[in-house]
C-alpha cells in the first residue's frame, strides 16, 4: 500500500540518481522528485493511519529471512511509528522540493547524483528505523543512517572543517550505536527473542539493577543521537558543514530518531519507571535547553546558531518526556499523557520549524556565499520571500503565539506546572524549576532570533556579496513555503492535530486526551485539568483578523490626508551612515556573555601597535574567544586518558610470536572455564 509505494519511490530515486550521475539535471529532478513523491505518500499514509485511530497499522511483516535462525528483517508500524513517519515524510517532502532548486548550486562542482541518491537513501533508512519490527532491522537501519549521514557531512570533503566534522560524527555515532546495542542485547537476552513484539514489557523480567543499567545505556546512546548535553559536541560541528538540505534533514529528522528510540524503549520495553529515570531526563532536558540557547546566542555563524538551537529544543522535548515518566511513576496517567503529548508535539514542531530555518539559511548561504552573519545584512529587501519565511520560522521557534512553537511549549508548561502537586517528595521542586528554566530559554531564544533575523536580514548589507544577493529560485521558495504552511497549521489548529495523537497516547500511557484538551468545538486548547488553563491560538488570530477593519477604517478616515515623504535615516547631520556603524552579532550578545561569564569563560585580547607613543596607536586589534567548556573539561581529559590507557595496552602487542601464542592459550582456557 501507500507506505510500500513510498519506500519503493525512495529506492527508485536512489537508483535513478546513481544511474544518471552524469546527467546532472536529470539526476536532480529524478532523484529529488521521487523523494518528494515518497514524502507525499508517507504523509498521506501516516495521517490516515493516525486518524483512523488504530493501535497497530501494520502487523509485523518479515521482509527478509536469512539462513541463520533469528536473523530476520521485520517491519511493523504502530501509532508511534506512524507519527514519526509523518515527521520524516513531511520534512522530507519539503526538503526534496527545496533541493530541486538548491542542488543547482552544486552543478559542475560536485556530484549531484550522489547527493540525490544518498538523500533518498537517508529517507529510506530513517523510515525503516521508525517502522523496524525487530532488533536486526532497527540496528541495521540505524547503522546505515549513521554511515549515510557521515557521508553527507563530509560531502564537501575538500574543506578540512568538513572532514574533521565527519570524523567526529562517525565516532560519536558509533559510540551511540554501541550503547544502544548493549542495551538491546540486555533486553533481548531476557526476552530470548529479537523482535519488538516480545520485547514489550520485558523490563519486568529484569532485576532493578539491570533495568537501571539498560536505561543508562539507552539514555547515553539515544542521547548522543538526539544531541543532549553533555553528549552534544558533534552537533554544532557536523550540522553546519553539511549541505543545507542535509543539515535540515539532520536537524529536523535524524536527531528525532533518538527521541523515537527513547520513547519506544522507556514507555514500551522497560516497564514501570522509577522516579529517578524521569527526573534525570527532566534534568538533562533542562540543562540542554538552557545551555543550548546560551551557546546559540554567542554564535555568529548562522548554521551553528541553528544547530545549538536544535540542542535547546531537544532539551525541551526531553523535559516533556522526562516529566511524562515521572508522572507514570506517581500514577498520574492523564498528566503523563499530557506531558508525552507536549514532548511529541514539540518534536514535530521542531522538525518543521528547524527544517524551515535551515532551508532559509541555505538560501541565504547560497546568495551571500558565507555562513558568517557579520557579513550579511540588508537581505530583507533583496530576498523578500526568504526573509518572510525565515521570520515565520523565527517567530515559531521563539514560541510566540499563534504559531506552533507556542502551542507545544504551552503544553509543556502546563504539564510542568501541574507536576508540583503530584508528589510530596523533594523531587517535585524540579517541576517549577524546570518551568522557570523553560521560561528563561524562551526569552533567550527570542533574543537570539532577534539577533539572527536582525543582523542577517535587516539594515544595510555588510559585504559586497550581501549587496549583490538575489532571491532564491522557485523550488527553494516552495520548499520553505510548505514548511511555513505546516508551522501555521500546527499553530492555529492544535486541537485538530491532537486527535492524531490519540492512538499514540492510548498505546503508551493508556489514555486518550484529545477530547479533554479540546473545548469550544476545537477553538480552544485546554490543559485537561479542573483549574482549566486554556488558550486559543486560532481565537487570537481570528480576533486580530476581525479587528483589522478598525485601524483600516481609521486610516481611511483620517490618515489619507497625511503626506508621506521618504527621507534618509537621521544620522546626526553627518555625511552618511556606513555598514560599519551597524551593530554586530557578537556585540548584540555581549551583555549576556558578561552575565554568564562563568559558563563561557570569555577571553579578550587587545593588541595595540604604535610607532612612537602609546596614545596614538597605528593599529588596534580586538579579538575575543570563548572556551569550549565541554570539550576542554570533559572530552579532552577522557580522550587523553583513553590514549594513555591504549598506549599502556600497546605493550600487549609485543610483536613476538610466542607472546601471541600464550594469549591464544590463555583465552582458550578462560573460555573453557567460562563455558562450563
Amino acid at each position, binding site marked *: 500500500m501507500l507506505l510500500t509505494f513510498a519506500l519503493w519511490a525512495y529506492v527508485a530515486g536512489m537508483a535513478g540518481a546513481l544511474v544518471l550521475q552524469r546527467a546532472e539535471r536529470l539526476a536532480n529532478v529524478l532523484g529529488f522528485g521521487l523523494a518528494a513523491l515518497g514524502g507525499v505518500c508517507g504523509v498521506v499514509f501516516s495521517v490516515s493511519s493516525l486518524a483512523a485511530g488504530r493501535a497497530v497499522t501494520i502487523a509485523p511483516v518479515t521482509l527478509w529471512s536469512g539462513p541463520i535462525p533469528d536473523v530476520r528483517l521485520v517491519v511493523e508500524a504502530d501509532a508511534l511509528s506512524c507519527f514519526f513517519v509523518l515527521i520524516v515524510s513531511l520534512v522530507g517532502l519539503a526538503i526534496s522540493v527545496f533541493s530541486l532548486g538548491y542542488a543547482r548550486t552544486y552543478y559542475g562542482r560536485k556530484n549531484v547524483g550522489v547527493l540525490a541518491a544518498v538523500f533518498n537513501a537517508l529517507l529510506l533508512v530513517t523510515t525503516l528505523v521508525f517502522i523496524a519490527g525487530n532488533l536486526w532491522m532497527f540496528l541495521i537501519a540505524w547503522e546505515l543512517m549513521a554511515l549515510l549521514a557521515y557521508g553527507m557531512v563530509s560531502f564537501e570533503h575538500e574543506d578540512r572543517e568538513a572532514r574533521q566534522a565527519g570524523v567526529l560524527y562517525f565516532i560519536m555515532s558509533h559510540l551511540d550505536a554501541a550503547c544502544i546495542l548493549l542495551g538491546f542485547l540486555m533486553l533481548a537476552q531476557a526476552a530470548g527473542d529479537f523482535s519488538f513484539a516480545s520485547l514489550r514489557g520485558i523490563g519486568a523480567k529484569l532485576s532493578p539493577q539491570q533495568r537501571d543499567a539498560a536505561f543508562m545505556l539507552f539514555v547515553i546512546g539515544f542521547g548522543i543521537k538526539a544531541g543532549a548535553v553533555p553528549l552534544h559536541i558533534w552537533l554544532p560541528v557536523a550540522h553546519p558543514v553539511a549541505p543545507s538540505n542535509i543539515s535540515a534533514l539532520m536537524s529536523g529528522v535524524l536527531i528525532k530518531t533518538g527521541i523515537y528510540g527513547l520513547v519506544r524503549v522507556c514507555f514500551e520495553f522497560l516497564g514501570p519507571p522509577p522516579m529517578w529515570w524521569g527526573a534525570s531526563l527532566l534534568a538533562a532536558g533542562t540543562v540542554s535547553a538552557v545551555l543550548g540557547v546560551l551557546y546559540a546566542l554567542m554564535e555568529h555563524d548562522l548554521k551553528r546558531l541553528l544547530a545549538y538551537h536544535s540542542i535547546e529544543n531537544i532539551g525541551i522535548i526531553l523535559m516533556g518526556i522526562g516529566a511524562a515518566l515521572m508522572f507514570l511513576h506517581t500514577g498520574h496517567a492523564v498528566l503523563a499523557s499530557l506531558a508525552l503529548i507536549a514532548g511529541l508535539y514539540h518534536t514535530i514542531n521542531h522538525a518543521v520549524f528547524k527544517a524551515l530555518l535551515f532551508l532559509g539559511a541555505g538560501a541565504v548561504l547560497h546568495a551571500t556565499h558565507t555562513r558568517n552573519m557579520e557579513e550579511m545584512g540588508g537581505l530583507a529587501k533583496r530576498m523578500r520571500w526568504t526573509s518572510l519565511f525565515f521570520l515565520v520560522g523565527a517567530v515559531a521557534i521563539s514560541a510566540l503565539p499563534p504559531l506552533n512553537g507556542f502551542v507545544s511549549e504551552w503544553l509543556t508548561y502546563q504539564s510542568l506546572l501541574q507536576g508540583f502537586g503530584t508528589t510530596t517528595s523533594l523531587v517535585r521542586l524540579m517541576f517549577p524549576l524546570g518551568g522557570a528554566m523553560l521560561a528563561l530559554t524562551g526569552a533567550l531564544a527570542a533574543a537570539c532570533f532577534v539577533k539572527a533575523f536582525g543582523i542577517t536580514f535587516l539594515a544595510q548589507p555588510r559585504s559586497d556579496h550581501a549587496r549583490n544577493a538575489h532571491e532564491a529560485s522557485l523550488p527553494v521558495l516552495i520548499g520553505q513555503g510548505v514548511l511555513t504552511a505546516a508551522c501555521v497549521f500546527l499553530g492555529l489548529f492544535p486541537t485538530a492535530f491532537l486527535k492524531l495523537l490519540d492512538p499514540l497516547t492510548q498505546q503508551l500511557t493508556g489514555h486518550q486526551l484529545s477530547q479533554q484538551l479540546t473545548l469550544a468545538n476545537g477553538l480552544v486548547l485546554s490543559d485537561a485539568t479542573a483549574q482549566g488553563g486554556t488558550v486559543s491560538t486560532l481565537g487570537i488570530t481570528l480576533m486580530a483578523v476581525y479587528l483589522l477593519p478598525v485601524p483600516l477604517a481609521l486610516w481611511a478616515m483620517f490618515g489619507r490626508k497625511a503626506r508621506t515623504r521618504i527621507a534618509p535615516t537621521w544620522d*546626526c547631520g553627518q555625511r552618511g551612515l556606513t555598514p560599519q556603524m551597524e551593530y554586530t552579532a557578537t556585540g*548584540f*550578545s555581549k551583555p549576556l556573555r558578561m552575565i554568564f561569564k562563568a559558563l563561557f569563560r570569555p577571553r579578550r585580547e587587545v593588541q595595540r601597535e604604535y610607532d612612537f607613543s602609546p596614545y*596614538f596607536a597605528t593599529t588596534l586589534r*580586538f579579538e575575543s574567544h570563548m572556551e569550549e567548556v565541554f570539550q576542554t573539561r570533559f572530552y579532552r581529559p577522557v580522550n587523553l586518558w583513553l590514549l594513555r590507557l591504549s598506549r599502556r595496552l600497546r605493550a600487549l602487542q609485543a610483536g613476538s610470536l610466542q607472546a601471541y601464542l600464550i594469549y591464544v592459550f590463555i583465552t582458550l582456557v578462560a573460555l573453557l572455564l567460562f563455558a562450563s
Partner: protein
Amino acid sequence: MKRDTPFTLLTNGTALSWADVPEWPLAEFLRNVGAELGRGERLSSFFGVPEGDALRLVAVLAFDAGNTLAVGRSQSFSGSFPALTATHAQAHLFEREIWEQHGVVPENHPWLKPVRKDHGAGPAVGDFFRVDGREIHEVAVGPVHAGIIEPGHFRFQCAGEEVLHLEIALGFQHRGVEEAIAGGPHRATVYQMETVAGDTTIGHATAYANALEALAGTEAPLRAQWLRAIALELERLANHTGDLGALAGDVAFLPTASACGKIRGDFLNLTALLCGNRFGRGLVRPGGCLLDGDTERLSQLRKRLETALAEVQQAAAWLWDAASVRTRFEHTGHLHAKQAAAIGLVGPAARACGLVRDVRFDHPTGWHRFAQVPVSVWPDGDVFARARVRWLEIQRSGDFLREQLDAVPEGETMSSLPALAPNSLAVALVEGWRGEVCHVALTGADGKLRRYKITDPSFHNWTGLALALRGQAISDFPLCNKSFNLSYCGFDL
C-alpha cells in the same frame, strides 16, 4: 627657583621685545623645547608666525614650579620639521594646527590629521581610525547631537558595549577668529574676543586685555583688576554650578539637577548685576573695566551671593549623599595622573587627576598677585573627582568673593590705553573655569597685531576625554562628556 634654561623667562601678563626672544635654528629649537618638556614643563602655546614664504615657530612654555613662563622661537624655515609629538604627546594638536594653518609638515607625527578645516563636507579628521576585529562596530554621533549643545562628532569603535577607541572630530564651529584679528585690533576685535568661547567671556576678555596692556606697557587700574577677578570667579561659580546640575541630570538625580539649574541662573544674574549682561559682555576692556560697581550695587551683590551659595550648598549635599550618584560617578571615565601630565591636561580636569596646576597659583597676575584662591585638587581622576573638584572650587570661589567684597579697593576703573609697542611679544594666561586660557600677541613694526594666538583650555583637554573613554561602556559617554564639559567653539575658533 632659578634654573638654567636657554629660554627667556617671562612673567604672566608681560611683554618683551621680539628681538629679545631667543632664536635658534629649527633643530636646536625643537631640541630645547623637547628638553624642557622632558623635564616636566608644560607647553602652553606652540604656533607658527609666517614670515613671507617661510615660517617661524614660537613656543611658550609654562614652568609651573618656577612660577614663570618661558618663550623661544626658531629661525625661519619651510617645508617640514621633525615632530615633537613623537616624544611628547602634549604637542600633538599644536603641530597638527601648525600643519593646517601654514602647510609645513611635522615629520613622524603619529596622528597627522587636520584640526578644523573641512575637506569636502566631512569632519575635519578625514578617515577615522578603525579597530580591526570582526566584532567591532562604529557608533558615530554628531555633529547635531542630543541636547542644546555645540556641534562635534564622536566616532566610537565598540566591541558590544565597550568602547575601545574614541576619536573626536571638531572644527564645525570654525569662524575664523585668529584670521580676523590680523592687522588689528579692529573695531570688532574685543567683541570677538568676548565670544571666542561664549561662556568664558571674562576669561578670554581678561586675557586679551592683559595681553594688550602688556604690549602697551601699562597695567589696568587696581580697582579694575579687582573687578575682573570678581567677575572671573562669578563666571566660575555659574558654570561649575551648571555642571554639577548637568552631571546630576545625567544620572537622573533630579533634586540637584533642578536646583542647580536655577542657581546657575542666579549666579549669571549676579554678573548681569555688575554689567547688564549675564555672561559679562561689555565689562572687561583693554585698559580696565568699562563699568563700575558702587557701594549699593556691591552690597546687593554680596547679599545675593550669600543666598545663592547657601542654596548650592544644599543642592550639592543632596548629590554627595546619594549612593546611586556615587556608583555612577566613581571609577567612570578614569584618567591617570601620568596620562594627564603626558597630554598636558589643564583646569579642573587636571586637578581631578591629582595634578596641582592652576594659573592663579602658578602664574598669578592682576588681582591674584594680592589675593590667593587655594588650589582644589582630588586624586582619583574619575567623574567623581571632576565633580568633587568643581564643588571645592565653588566653595573656594565663594570664600574668595566674600573676602574681596568685604574689602573693596578705591580708585578708577578705566584708563586709556597707550599705543602698542611695535615688534613685541606678550603672553597672558588666565585661569578660566575650564582651565588655562592662553593668549599670545605679536605686534609688527607698525604696532598692529601681526599674529594673535588663542589657546582655549579645551585645546588641551579634548584629548583627555578621548583617553578617558577607553574601556568604558558607551552608555557612560554623556556622563564623561559632561564631566569634562569642554568648549567646542573655543577649540574651533
